[in-house]
């Protein structure tokens, strides 16, 4: 994004950095500006950097096959046999935004799934998002049911989601739209699960903001953060007016609610909004961060992003095209994924020892979701990625990140595996602006980096000592044992 004027080019980047170049010579300046403009607004995906990027590192593990749903299923089947892998969508014909394989209740066959797909928006029939080992409860996600104004029903749909309930127990449907929006959706053929047809399910409407509202909020916040004036008052009112933290709070609350239904109430949960590709994924993925210690490891978090965002069909290419400095109003642009990352950061801040990764890892994902030399975040769903032949033609972000020398930069020095469910506070006092993103280019980072370094050194020194002590202990024990043997003789 550029604004050119006499010999000066201002480049506003998607990672929120602003670069100003002073270029002598009017003509040269204009040429450079137009080149940048042209190169930054390519209309064909295949002309983008990932297709030309030649990695300078050795690939130890191909990231494209690091996180297959089959592996996830293997893990699942070690604890339960109530689920099965379905290949009903192997040619993307049943649901274009779903991956070729999905996990569904064992008792539901592919024929039923096809019928359910016709009853759900975009064919997004309910699939397993998360299985809570502790009590066997499941979190499903889907899109809205197409009940329409005349209250259409689909027996297979009812059967599918009922299959996740224990006999006599209830489940919860978390609808990320307010009731009136859900009601209005009926006029357009959409709708919600009505009590009559889903007597075992309770519906909760937990509104999560969408699309341009989020984008506007994002733009306003970034504007406020770049304001160089020294006035405290204006800062707080701008922060408030952006509503960004309100969205964070609502999102976290909804995720906590879903997690609470599963862990505390011992109930299965179905989450959906309208399309099931945005707020739905925010809620299901955040709930897993809260519930599942695996998702708080580096590898587990990568798997979560792949499973709940990439494979689940969050349209990254539409949502992350422009970032906060876009002047043209892009209909599909929205910082949905960034909001998710920030919520993870908020939980991370409250449980700083429970995550294997550090803040830089989240920032890295933010950057690569918007612009990357890797193909991971290209395309809007698996079907598009397959068409573009991304796994063959581009490098996966995970291939790079998961190399030991890169990984070490993203490790949280004070991580200590925590097998518990972590319940964050969602009170306003507990939420802060994510300075690592929004003040990243403005604040002096030296002192914070030094603090981080100190932390690493403290832990490192401790580990070294531990190793030394253990070696000595062993030596001593051996010698003493020898001594005793000799003595016994």
């Amino acid at each position, binding site marked *: 994004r550029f604004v050119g004027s006499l010999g000066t080019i201002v480049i506003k980047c998607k990672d929120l950095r602003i670069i100003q170049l002073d270029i002598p010579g009017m003509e040269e300046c204009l040429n450079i500006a137009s080149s940048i403009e042209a190169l930054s607004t390519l209309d064909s995906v295949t002309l983008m950097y990932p297709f030309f990027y030649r990695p300078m590192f050795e690939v130890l593990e191909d990231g494209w096959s690091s996180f297959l749903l089959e592996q996830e299923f293997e893990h699942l089947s070690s604890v339960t046999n109530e689920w099965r892998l379905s290949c009903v969508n192997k040619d993307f014909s049943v649901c274009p935004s779903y991956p070729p394989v999905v996990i569904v209740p064992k008792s539901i066959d592919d024929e039923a799934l096809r019928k359910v797909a016709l009853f759900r928006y975009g064919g997004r029939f309910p699939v397993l998002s998360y299985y809570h080992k502790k009590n066997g409860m499941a979190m499903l996600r889907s899109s809205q049911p197409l009940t329409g104004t005349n209250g259409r029903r689909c027996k297979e749909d009812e059967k599918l989601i009922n299959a996740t309930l224990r006999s006599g127990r209830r489940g919860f449907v978390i609808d990320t739209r307010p009731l009136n929006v859900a009601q209005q959706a009926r006029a357009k053929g959409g709708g919600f699960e009505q009590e009559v047809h889903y007597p075992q399910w*309770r519906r*909760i409407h*937990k509104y999560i903001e969408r699309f341009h509202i989020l984008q506007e909020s994002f733009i306003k916040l970034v504007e406020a953060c770049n*304001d*160089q*004036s*020294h006035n*405290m008052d204006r800062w*707080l*009112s701008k*922060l*408030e007016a952006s509503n960004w933290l*309100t969205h*964070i*709070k609502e999102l976290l*609350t909804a995720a*906590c*609610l879903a997690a609470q*239904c599963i862990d*505390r109430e011992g109930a299965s949960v179905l989450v959906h909004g309208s399309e099931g590709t945005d707020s739905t994924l925010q809620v299901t993925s955040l709930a897993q961060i809260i519930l599942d210690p695996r998702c708080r490891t580096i590898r587990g978090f990568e798997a979560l992003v792949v499973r709940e965002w990439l494979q689940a069909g969050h349209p990254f290419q539409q949502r992350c095209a422009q970032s906060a400095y876009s002047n043209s109003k892009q209909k599909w642009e929205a910082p949905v994924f960034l909001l998710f990352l920030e919520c993870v950061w908020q939980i991370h801040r*409250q*449980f700083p*020892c429970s995550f294997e990764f550090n803040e830089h890892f989240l920032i890295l994902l933010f950057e690569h979701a918007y612009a990357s030399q890797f193909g991971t975040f290209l395309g809007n769903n698996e079907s598009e990625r397959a068409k573009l032949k991304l796994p063959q033609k581009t490098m996966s972000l995970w291939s790079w990140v998961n190399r030991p020398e890169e990984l070490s930069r993203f490790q949280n020095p*004070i991580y*200590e595996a*925590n097998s*518990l469910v*972590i*319940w964050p*506070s*969602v*009170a306003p*006092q*507990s939420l*802060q602006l994510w300075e690592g993103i929004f*003040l990243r280019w*403005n*604040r*002096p980072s030296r*002192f914070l980096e*030094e603090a981080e370094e*100190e932390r690493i050194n*403290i*832990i490192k020194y*401790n580990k070294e*000592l531990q190793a*030394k*002590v253990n070696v*000595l*202990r*062993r*030596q*001593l*024990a051996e*010698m*003493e044992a*020898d*001594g005793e043997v*000799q*003595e016994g003789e």
Partner: protein
Amino acid sequence: VENVRLLDRLSSRRAVVGTLYLTATHVIFVENGSETRKETWVLHSQISSIEKQATTATGCPLLIRCKNFQVIHLVIPQERDCHDVYISLIRLARPVKYEELYCFSFNPKLDKEEREQGWKLVDLNEEYNRMGVPNSYWQISDVNRDYGVCDSYPTEVYVPKSATAHIIVGSSKFRSRRRFPALSYYCKGNNASICRSSQPLSGFSARCLEDEQMLQAIRKANPGSDFIYVVDTRPKLNAMANRAAGKGYENEDNYSNIKFQFIGIENIHVMRNSLQKMLEVCELKSPSMSDFLWGLENSGWLKHIKAIMDAGIFIAKAVAEEGVSVLVHCSDGWDRTAQVCSVASLLLDPYYRTMKGFMVLIEKDWISFGHKFNHRYGNLDGDPKEISPVIDQFIECVWQLMEQFPCAFEFNERFLIHIQHHIYSCQFGNFLCNSQKERRELKIKERTYSLWAHLWKNRADYLNPLYRSDHSQTQGTLHPQIAPCNFLYKFWSGMYNRFEKGLHPRQSVTDYLMAVKEETQQLEEELEVLQERLANLQKSQSGNNKVKSKQQDRSKQFGLYASNNSLANTPQEYSSDLKSFPSRSPSQGDEDSALILTQDNLKSSDPDLSANSDQESGVEDLSCRSPSGGGCLPSEDSGKDSDEAVFLAG
């Protein structure tokens, strides 16, 4: 009083029933039933207000707000009992004589000598020597020996060598409350200094030759600069209004070589109201993000904090970078002046960022120069209009700096919170009275104990694990950022929502690192012992001289490690050694073991002990926090049916 219910502000479901006791010094609430019989102790001196609300079907609610930001909500079954408690507390919370205060009855079981040692821990003479005075420019003046010139000043003050007693006395007569310019901080490196005083009695046109000479003397004491800054920390309007009352500010025309500067910090009344407004926001039951941010902004609190910080930054810059001396005053020179001088000193001198140095700083700029602790913090019953969170603001400034410079301070957040707590608790004599004169008359040092000694004894709890005295961040002057886009002044929930642990991060990086550091130290010691043993063993084995009794001696000597050694044979067990260190794992729940002060402490002295919160794995009761107003899940034990009812509302 029995059968009293203590309500949890965040959730009406989580009330506990217990018995309320009133003693001469504390309000004590003891829970019924629970095995631990959890107790909540509140010092009478911490009570800031008591509110009796309208009686309801369940009883008579009593709301006790404390100066350390604890809010206790009790429901007493009988209206009569409630009234009695209310009346008693009102009397108990507002003592009229110093002798009624807790420090005169508080006895930490120290002998006389230890107490005297305690009072000697912080020695201002030593401090001025450390700064490098007296020297050829500055000398100690005995003009205020018997508080004859200024009764709110200490007996020993440093003044420029060229300022004669005549000049000092003359200048004092031209200053409010006779608080003449005196040295607060001297910068050894470049001779620049920070001096403090009250406002001049200039009115619209009055002059005072001695006062002009006094300022001249301050300038001359810094040969490197040909002018001094005079910083008036009030908003210009306030200062001008004072002129009508015969007070005011220095006229640049009358004083040679001064540069006059206003820095608008509001007065104590504005600050009191601002805090009040912010606390109202903190008390909101389930505020939305907008409620909270709007309320925070509307309180103006962070704006005021920033104003104080900006003033400190200005002065530190003048002294460190320009090498210019600064005279600071406000109206009386005991509130804003104290704040600004101490912030500037903290920025300039790394010593004040150590634990000991910080105690010295408070002793110097606040206690010795007559900050009116008794009036500002309402220790004795007095004029409510005199109460204002002046030192609280300074403490918050320090916290904001700690956020910006995580490695620069030797102490941690807990240190600040405990100091704030004890400024109000009156458990130690340090902060009693309004001036040194009053304290001497009361014989504070003979009759009470010093907080500094208490904190120093427990200093391990207050260390910042990231601090290293040889780290670059601990050196030299700090240069904080001032624009919000570079650094955000944040709401300090650790202080203002201190007793609502549910709002704080559930795992503390500081505590974790402290535990690791402690373990590291243990390991270092063990390493040494092991190396020694190994050397001995090698020696004895090579000499083929194994006397069994010797070995037994040795294992006795190192009995501590005997059990570990037995494990050390099996390699799988090595990792279990990790767990043998007690304080290691980051606790999530409420067991902040490090927060609990040492045993010899009375319960009451532990400011964190009376907190209540969830024991279980950081479980958050979301019902009260959801924006839709209490519409979701209660966390535990309530019946299934009612759960669902609540659900629907959501």
